[in-house]
């Protein structure tokens, strides 16, 4: 009778393999160890991945910053407003400086623009003589509603969400 050998060529006692329905004891144990190991790894991996990716899930707190009185802005006179506000940066509270362009259509209707040219993010300015927004970097030109008139900008000026509270103009902080 040929001697029973295990997969490593060692003599095998028939009882040790415990062959029943195709699953040897060795297989059963290695599945068991693999299963338990996988369960432990999953139990560890799940919180760790969530922990590491945590900032990617955070939506940030919505902030509205008062940038002036409605009466500060005369119609069709774009005005650059610089403001600063407290912002949460991880565990720190930092002073965030920001800018926006406010265009009053009348005392109740406004446009608030992001101060960056939509082409490559340069700061544009309002030209009072031409009554256009001009970007110095690559010649982007926008009209008073933010629409592109000339140059490379791919889209109109980005609008910043704002709201009126009483006669206060508030813009949304990023």
């Amino acid at each position, binding site marked *: 009778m040929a001697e029973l050998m295990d997969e*490593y060529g060692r003599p095998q006692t028939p009882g040790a393999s415990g062959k029943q329905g195709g699953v040897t004891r060795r297989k059963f144990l290695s599945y068991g160890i693999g299963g338990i190991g996988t369960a432990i790894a999953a139990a560890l991996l799940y*919180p*760790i991945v969530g*922990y590491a990716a*945590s900032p990617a899930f955070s939506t940030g707190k919505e902030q509205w910053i008062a940038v002036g009185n409605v009466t500060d802005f005369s119609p069709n006179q774009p005005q650059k407003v610089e403001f600063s506000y407290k912002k949460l940066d*991880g*565990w*720190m509270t930092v002073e965030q400086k920001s800018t926006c362009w406010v265009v009053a259509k009348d005392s109740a209707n406004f446009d608030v623009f992001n101060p960056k040219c939509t082409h490559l993010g340069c700061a544009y300015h309002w030209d009072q003589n031409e009554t256009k927004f001009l970007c110095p970097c690559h010649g982007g030109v926008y009209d008073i509603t933010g629409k592109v008139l000339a140059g490379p900008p791919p889209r109109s000026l980005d609008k910043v969400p704002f709201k009126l509270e009483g006669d206060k103009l508030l813009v949304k902080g990023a």
Partner: protein
Amino acid sequence: MSVYDWLDKRLDLRPGLAKMLDHPVPTWVNWLYCFGGITFFFFVLQAITGIFLMLYYVPSPDHAYESVQYITNTVHFGKIIRGMHHWTATLIVVTVVIHMLRVFWHGAYKAPRELNWVAGVCLFLLTMGFGFTGYLLPWDQKAYWATAVGTNIAGSVPVVGSFLLKLARGGTDLGAVTLVRFFDVHVALLPLFMVIFLAGHFFMIRRQGISRPY
């Protein structure tokens, strides 16, 4: 064909793995013999959770406390990751002591295993070092005063005491320099020595086998 078979065909993994995984364990060992392995498992857990705590922790007096609070209260699962590191740190001391007591009780430190006992004592001291340096890192009152007391004990050593105290604190006072050097020791120096001594510990136990107490 499984991934393992594919790798085995090219790298001939089977003999090496078989030698490692099919290592026969004496039939007379019992649960008391598991505490070294449990301690190692805890150490791996500490390494993993520690690496991830460093993702948000800042070892500076300006930010240490706030960054720990940020981990605990703001970061998703931060409380769990920090909690695992905290409780495993406590448990590891318990399992190390049980492991040591078992080896001592069974006289397993006797020849020819004296060197492995020495390596084990070094690992015990490294564990204590981890505990001592890690305790300061949250930079709260408990951390600060525990380290004040601990370093004062070093300062009470005759002759070289004041030198040891200044060495531990990075100056006469406990402050920014203390925090950074404790952090460095905790996350770089001690892990390095830990891995070296663990490798020696495991090599020796494999070479010499488990000592039979009777």
